[in-house]
């Protein structure tokens, strides 16, 4: 048996780099096995293995390799991991290598090397700017079935996993005096200076290794190598208790009041997170001050076929060489318009690359030093040549055109400060023509900018501005901070004269690599009138890919400016918006998924209901017992029927603890209640309860419930389960804003009290067994709508309300929550011989529909008291919330849909809520609509389905027939309009 050979890391130099050669890591890319080392990214390991082709482009399926070595990467997007952990569109440049990593290239079919869809390149004109709006317009019928699926397949990015994510995600909060974003030379200096001044410092770094550009360069700081200097700073930071360094953490958004969003990749660098650990953690960071030390992104240059694999940013080529000891090419041409990039020749040459030439359009009198044998050409690269990767470039210089063979073009159009976080609150960056860079237009309060992000491109300047920013932050917070001594750094030049000109060519020259937007596309947008950057962006899709155009935007602006013949500063910019880097939806959801999407409320007797085998349903935030199935009951219908019959014939017990309960006290409690409720409450005597309705200010019904007067200055009001919070808020608004002079205090007691409905002809007999014998429960002592404080036989203090929702002789008994379990068990134990049944929401609903009581379905925010048959309750003797608006003619118009009952003419037919009422014989168009069924239930008492609904002129049409048309369930049932009180309309049972 043969063991597959693992390719040698052919492009890795024998020594150097910030990698751990003692820890080789195996990984797989597109089915091939490779090795890298600890400290590699997926990208650097692929470079070390000589892999140059990493993906195919979005529209034209052109071969693409690495452009960058950082978070700005537009090309090297891969699917990482497999199965349900598969993660599309991951940038290989920021994916930390781990043993067993599996990655797959995207957007190619059937394989990366041989991609059939590359034929799109021949259809190039069809995919020009605005192609969505042009090419696929005709015929219109082709859009859904032909064009869109075709575009989707061709333009697909990675595939997401389809199963549930097996990993967990968290959210967390952090607070600090100073947030430093970026641990490069400026960030490290700022963090340390602030920490020494005693500030609580949080230093967030996107990379798994702090150091920023110092890791990718050969600069010496303070007499030691850059990485060693970084190590010293990090060691001191680690020794300080007031510093927290967060690696693998991208600050992706800047929000009001010093709030920042950050994503910590806790376990993205291991195949599977260890037990109990999240994959990623979403941070909300609140910082009193902030220093952006986010560095800069290098600008690509524009020339024909500048997207060929092997055409790379110069800084990236140096990073792969210096940090990862990997050569991105053997034969190198540097093409740059600035001094910084000239160092590429020396750095790559030191690792054994042959540097052919440095091509720079600037007429230089003092050229930066170059290694022996490297030619300096004053000129430009016009075109890259090659098939699947670059083989040569055409250079225009000194009056002639030359062809230089090479396998790596290291290009640089200078560095663009990374100012995204400074712009997230709306301030657009401002173009500084003199220094040829963007500067923040205005900085959010409390934010300072340091290092390359501030345009301080040399190490010395970066260190100095980092220190300055820290001192400014400390001073602003009232701390004294000393200006730290700056370390020695060898002199550098950041001289730069930006090259904007683009060589004339019929070949493609890419501005936005990820969205395949070319120079021609941007120019076309200009010709077609989309000259504003915001319009050009949307028309061409430039900057709208997952990289948000980090490498593309400036070049596009320069093109638009040239097209308009005006400076960049006058052309404007688009705004950066959060997030700076893609953030997984799973991280945003955190632990709030599945049943934990939001918290669930459980009543105090929930455990008892579980023991009874109750089937539960969600009711708002609550889980409530829907019904209590017993042996031989095949469905909810049989269980509900038994529960209703037991209640109507003997006694039923239901947990109604979910109702909102508000304790109202104070000398003005009566006045407060009187103004809140639409019906008269002033005459309510102590020891009595009354049904009441509250209106909104617009006159619509807000909620209903009962008001019980517990003492002269103390009331208990109940709300529906659904509206408990809304009613409490309404009361707070009324008290705090409308009537602040009322001396009234109220507080929710919903969680303090559990409450059980005990309903049915034997309800008094049942209560007799649990209420202490000295309490008189007779009709005389405790009539309908009476309230009493009682003790149970075990001494528990309880409240007894003789109120009824079921229409039966009924009570509600309230006990402190910890007594709920004992109380329900005592009731059910004693109820056995009486034929008692526990009933759930189905039976509760059926019985209230039988009685014609309104509930949430009818109190839907669109119904007036008149609509619900409650108009007579509206007091004419007092003012109350909603009084004036409720008198509007439109709300009392008898033609409005109003509450009535419905029964199917053929009693065997089933009714469903949501059915619309149309005249018998009508087609059932919208024009025929006369209202709709709000509630429906099977009535065990009547033996057929019944419903409540809102029907135009309903109360005037009792006895008429209409059709209940249910287009969702495809039912058409002829129904009879009837009195909504189907059972005991005179209320004899209530009082009996």
């Amino acid at each position, binding site marked *: 048996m043969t063991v597959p050979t693992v390719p040698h890391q052919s492009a890795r130099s024998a020594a150097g780099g910030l990698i751990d050669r003692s820890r080789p890591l195996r990984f797989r890319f597109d089915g091939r096995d490779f090795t890298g080392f600890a400290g590699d990214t997926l990208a650097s390991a692929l470079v070390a293995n000589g892999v140059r082709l990493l993906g195919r482009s979005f529209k034209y399926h052109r071969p693409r390799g690495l452009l960058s070595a950082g978070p700005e990467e537009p090309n090297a997007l891969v699917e990482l991991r497999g199965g349900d952990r598969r993660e599309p569109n991951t940038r290989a440049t920021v994916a930390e290598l781990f043993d067993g990593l599996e990655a797959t290239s995207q957007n190619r079919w059937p394989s990366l090397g041989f991609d059939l869809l590359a034929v799109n390149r021949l259809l190039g004109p069809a995919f020009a700017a605005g192609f969505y709006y042009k090419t696929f317009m005709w015929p219109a019928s082709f859009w859904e079935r032909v064009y869109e699926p075709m575009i989707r397949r061709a333009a697909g990015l990675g595939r997401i996993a389809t199963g549930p994510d097996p990993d967990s995600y968290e959210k967390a909060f952090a607070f600090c005096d100073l947030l430093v974003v970026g641990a490069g030379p400026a960030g490290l200096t700022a963090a340390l200076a602030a920490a020494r001044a005693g500030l609580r410092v949080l230093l967030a770094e996107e990379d798994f290794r702090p150091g920023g550009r110092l890791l990718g360069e050969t600069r010496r700081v303070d007499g030691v190598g850059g990485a060693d200097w970084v190590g010293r700073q990090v060691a001191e930071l680690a020794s300080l208790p007031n510093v927290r360094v967060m690696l693998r953490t991208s600050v992706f958004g800047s929000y009001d009041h010093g709030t920042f969003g950050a994503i910590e990749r806790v376990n993205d660098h291991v195949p599977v997170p260890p037990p109990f650990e999240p994959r990623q953690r979403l941070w909300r960071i609140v910082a009193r001050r902030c220093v952006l030390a986010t560095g800069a992104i290098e600008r690509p240059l524009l020339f024909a076929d500048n997207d060929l694999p092997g055409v790379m940013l110069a800084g990236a080529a140096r990073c792969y060489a210096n940090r990862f000891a990997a050569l991105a090419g053997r034969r190198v041409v540097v093409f740059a318009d600035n001094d910084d990039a000239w160092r590429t020749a020396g750095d790559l040459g030191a690792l054994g690359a042959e540097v052919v030439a440095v091509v720079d359009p600037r007429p230089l009198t003092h050229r930066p030093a170059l290694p022996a044998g490297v030619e300096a050409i004053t000129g430009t690269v016009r075109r890259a040549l090659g098939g699947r990767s670059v083989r040569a470039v055409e250079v225009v210089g000194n009056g002639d055109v030359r062809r230089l063979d090479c396998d790596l073009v290291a290009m640089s159009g200078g560095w663009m400060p990374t100012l995204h976080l400074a712009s997230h609150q709306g301030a657009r960056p401002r173009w500084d023509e003199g220094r040829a860079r963007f500067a923040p237009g205005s900085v959010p309060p409390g934010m300072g900018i340091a290092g390359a992000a501030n345009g301080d491109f040399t190490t010395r300047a970066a260190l100095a501005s980092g220190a300055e920013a820290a001192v400014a932050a400390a001073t602003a917070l009232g701390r004294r901070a000393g200006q730290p001594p700056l370390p020695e750094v060898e002199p550098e030049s950041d001289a730069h004269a930006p090259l904007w000109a683009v060589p004339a060519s019929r070949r493609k020259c890419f501005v936005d690599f990820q969205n395949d937007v070319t120079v021609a596309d941007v120019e076309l947008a200009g010709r077609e009138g989309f000259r504003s950057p915001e319009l050009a962006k949307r028309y061409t899709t430039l900057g709208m890919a997952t990289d948000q155009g980090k490498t593309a935007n400036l070049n596009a602006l320069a093109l638009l400016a040239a097209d308009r013949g005006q400076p960049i500063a006058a052309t404007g910019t688009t705004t950066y918006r959060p997030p700076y880097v893609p953030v997984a939806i799973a991280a945003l959801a955190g632990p709030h998924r599945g049943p934990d999407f939001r918290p669930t409320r459980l009543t105090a007797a929930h455990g008892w209901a579980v023991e009874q085998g109750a089937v539960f349903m969600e009711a708002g935030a609550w889980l409530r017992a829907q019904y209590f199935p017993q042996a031989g009951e095949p469905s909810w219908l049989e269980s509900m029927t038994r529960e209703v019959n037991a209640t109507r014939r003997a006694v039923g017990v239901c947990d109604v603890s979910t109702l909102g309960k508000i304790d109202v006290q*104070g000398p003005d409690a009566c006045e407060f209640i009187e103004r809140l409720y639409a019906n008269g409450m002033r005459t309510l005597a102590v020891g009595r309860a009354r049904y009441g309705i509250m209106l909104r200010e617009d006159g619509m019904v807000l909620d209903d419930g009962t008001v019980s007067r517990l003492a002269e200055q103390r009331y208990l009001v109940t709300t529906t389960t659904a509206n408990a919070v809304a009613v409490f808020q309404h009361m707070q608004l009324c008290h705090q804003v409308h009537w602040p002079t009322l001396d009234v205090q*109220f507080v929710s007691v919903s969680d303090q009290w559990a409450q059980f409905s005990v309903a049915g002809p034997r309800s008094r007999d049942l209560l007799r067994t649990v209420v202490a014998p000295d309490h008189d429960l007779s009709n005389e002592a405790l009539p309908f709508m009476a309230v009493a404080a009682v003790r149970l036989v075990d001494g528990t203090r309880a409240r007894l309300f003789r109120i009824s929702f079921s229409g039966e002789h009924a009570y509600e008994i309230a006990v402190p929550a910890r007594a709920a379990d004992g109380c329900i068990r005592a009731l059910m134990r004693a109820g056995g011989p009486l034929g008692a049944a526990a009933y759930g929401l189905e039976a509760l609903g059926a019985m209230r529909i039988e009685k014609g009581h309104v509930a949430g379905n009818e109190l839907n925010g669109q119904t007036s008291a008149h609509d619900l048959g409650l108009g007579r309750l509206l007091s004419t003797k007092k003012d109350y919330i909603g009084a004036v608006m409720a008198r509007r003619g439109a709300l009392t118009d008898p033609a409005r849909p109003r509450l009535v009952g419905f029964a199917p003419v053929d009693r065997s037919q089933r009714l469903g809520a949501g059915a619309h009422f149309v005249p018998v014989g009508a087609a059932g168009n919208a024009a025929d609509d006369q209202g709709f069924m709000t509630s429906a239930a099977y009535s065990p008492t009547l033996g057929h389905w019944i419903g409540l609904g809102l029907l135009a002129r309903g109360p005037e049409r009792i006895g008429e027939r209409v059709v209940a048309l249910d287009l969702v369930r495809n039912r058409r049932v002829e129904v009879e309009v009837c009195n909504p009180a189907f059972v005991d309309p005179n209320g004899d049972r209530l009082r009996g």
Partner: protein
Amino acid sequence: MARGHDSLPAPGRGGRAGAEPGLIVRECAGLALASVLARRGALERASMAVRTAFGVDLPLAPRAADGRGVTFIWSGPAQWIAEFPAPVDVETVLAAALGDAAAICDQSHSRLVIDVTGPRVREVLAKGVPVDLHPDAFEVGDVAVTSAHHVGLQLRQLSVAPAYRLSVPRSYAGSFWTWLEHSAAEFGYEVLPSAGGQG
């Protein structure tokens, strides 16, 4: 005892095993709680009455004040939670002291009250509590009326150790524990047998 839906699970360790649990949690059973809401314009009277009866000033900021046999915990402008370490008829006791200076309402059964401590307690709480609990910002006796995992939460610091007392509505106790357990799992946690109110 199996895990209740409105109490902590049975005593024992959970989450990552290790020498020392990162979070130690214990239910404070048997507390007596009441809402105390000053009547309009009666703040001074209420404060005087509390000082006389319990030897402590009502806190006017998010703080807790320990009096004789009772702690007054700020819960909003002119309102407090009075916490007694053992069951007592709170409405009677407080009404006797405050008279008509405040509205009193028994809340003894309305909350799950737990004490949390341990070397990683701040990191655990940071996963849901949007309050800066660093010692520079939050001290012993400080109180926060806030939320965690969309559950209303009252929190106060009991000791420098640090230890905190958390109180959530009883009906949310199960969901709150789900969050706390998940948040503490990576550090390991231990549930202690429930105790009276003296944290």
